[in-house]
């Protein structure tokens, strides 16, 4: 199975360890993984700001980089959702369609495609799970609290297999952290307040780590935690799942 690793632009440059963990994890489960070197950005920042008409170039570049794979896998619910919902190509719509139908967020790829039953891993800490909104409500990686429907969580299903990991139950289990792309700077006051409140919920449950599938949310929370000089750390779920 040929897998194209799609690493969000900011993860590539600020959090290389997440790319490494994702790559190793996929290889561990037998995938033939490549990272196309000419990938840049999926174009979501422009689209969410109202400039989707300027994302054609990003789309073309994305299709050029990822058309040859069976699957495209990304350690971000948000970027995955953007590609899944908005990737089109004037030059090669068939390839764009193939990618839209075969792009997966990392944890759902592990649970749904690779059908991972067990993971060797050891992470003896108290952990709070921050489910990103795009991953949850956009990709249905877990059940949202708004619906009258049976609960499930693909990331938590994986985390439950990690030795020593103590997953806490939050008071507001799926409230947005306030990152929101450009929102984090255009609505700075509300964005930070939302982040502070999310952290407060995790802190009240005495977590050592806040984990999640989207580093953008975690980067925002980490920024606040570091300013607070808090002992709570953030860690991407790929790093926990690859902890051996």
């Amino acid at each position, binding site marked *: 199975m040929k897998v194209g690793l799609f690493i969000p632009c900011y993860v590539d*440059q600020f959090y290389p360890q997440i790319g490494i963990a994702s790559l190793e994890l996929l290889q561990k489960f037998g995938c033939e993984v490549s990272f196309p070197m000419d*990938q840049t*950005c999926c174009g979501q920042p422009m*689209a969410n700001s109202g400039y989707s008409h300027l994302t054609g170039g990003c789309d073309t570049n994305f299709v050029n980089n990822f058309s040859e794979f069976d699957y495209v896998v990304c350690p971000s619910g948000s970027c995955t959702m953007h590609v899944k919902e908005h990737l089109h190509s004037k030059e090669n719509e068939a390839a764009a369609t193939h990618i839209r139908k075969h792009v997966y967020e990392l944890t759902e790829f592990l649970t749904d495609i690779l059908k991972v039953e067990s993971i060797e891993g050891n992470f003896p800490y108290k952990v709070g799970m921050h489910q990103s*909104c795009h991953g949850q*409500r956009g990709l249905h990686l877990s059940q949202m609290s708004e619906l009258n429907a049976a609960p499930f969580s693909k990331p938590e299903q994986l985390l439950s297999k990690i030795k020593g990991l103590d997953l806490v139950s939050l008071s507001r289990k799926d409230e947005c952290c306030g990152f929101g792309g450009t929102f*984090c700077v255009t609505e700075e006051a509300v964005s930070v307040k*939302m982040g502070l409140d999310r952290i407060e919920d995790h802190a009240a449950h005495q977590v050592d780590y806040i984990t999640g599938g989207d580093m953008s949310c975690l980067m925002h929370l980490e920024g606040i935690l570091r300013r607070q000089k808090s002992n709570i750390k953030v860690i991407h779920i790929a790093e926990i799942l690859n902890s051996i």
Partner: protein
Amino acid sequence: MKENTIDHSHAAAIFNKDVERVNWHDETLWFVRSKRDKSAHAIPEWEALRETASNIKNNVLSNIHDYLVEFEAKAKENGIIIHWAADGDEHNKIVHSIIAKHGVTQMVKSKSMLTEECHLNEYLAENGVEVIDSDLGEFIVQLRKEPPSHIVLPAIHLKKEDVSDTFHEHLGTEKGNNDPQYLTEAARKELRDTFLTRKVALTGVNFAVAETGEFVVCTNEGNADMGAHLADVHIACMGFEKLIPQRKHLSVFLRLLARSATGQPITTFSSHFKKPRDGQEMHIVIVDNGRSTQLGREEFRNSLKCIRCGACMNTCPVYRRSGGHSYHNAVAGPIGSILAPNLDMKKNADLPFASTLCGSCTNVCPVKIDIHDQLYKWRQVLVKEGYTPSSKTMAMKGMSAVLANPTVFKIAGKAGRFVMKNLPFMVNNNLNAWYKQREMPAPPEESFREWYAKKAKESKDKK
């Protein structure tokens, strides 16, 4: 009424200066959201009810012409006088003409977001008519000369201490007496007198039934009934999307409305008005005010399904932390942000951006309006129509040019470090806003792509 014209983020920043109040506002509304969850999750067929309601409203929006004609004919048969208003101004003139015909200068009004949308109170005040709002929350904000901050809970931005001060000033209640029972009784006494002396009563409409020509008004305080039953003239104002085809459809909507709004199984009063009682005059003003334009916008027509329950506001993490007034529109929160640009794109261009697109609104909505997708779509429209700053457009163009071309991307930032200084999600904003209350991650020694290239070279060399 004071009109807030500063943009959402600025107003929200001011709201956030009082941390305790923001916490209280957030927790109060989260409590309402939690009550909604409890109530909704106790109904096994809840999701099917939402789907049914959404489908009924689809049918209404697709056949609105026929239903309006049917409703008008039936209502007229029942002895109701029907008026049609193309916009807010015409609506206000019609209401005023009815009041003027009866030679009165005072009117009692129960909750109607439509009249807020049309700025009826201001219009009538300018024309010498005094309006008393009889919904307790609206009564409070009216005394304070403020607009409602929430469509179901108009005074939710106020604490009981604020209400006490307001009543002390306007109704002469005991200073510092914050007892809700005492304060409510003071309002009740004041309003009893109003109900008894007003000859004209105006109410909103929650549902208008095409099949029978009747309309239903839902309140918890019975204030609509008090006003309408004691007055000689009852005026009911409705946006045309309030129609439902048949009376039996109320069994879907009445189950959804109060549960979504406050977690109650049903509102205390669901009053059906079908014909005027002997000697009474009953009017219905059916208002367009931009609704047919919205109906014609394919991407946004779903917004007209709204039954004004306020669930999207209660669940919205941004609304809870910015307050209803920061939306400078009669209807605040997520639903307001998709309705307002239709009324005035320039004035409301900021609202679709006052969201993280978390999607919670869409999933509590009892009529399944795709609210967060519409927020995204409004952003695209507003940019195309030129309502975003040109500096932002320039920055976006530059950003997309770099990101579209891997070669330029590599050159633009030495060793692919373009993103580090130009985080795409911060386009057109320098990092100051980020740094105000947050740190940036420390740059690692090498990027993932550098590590990957190195590894690839190593394994190639081994071979």
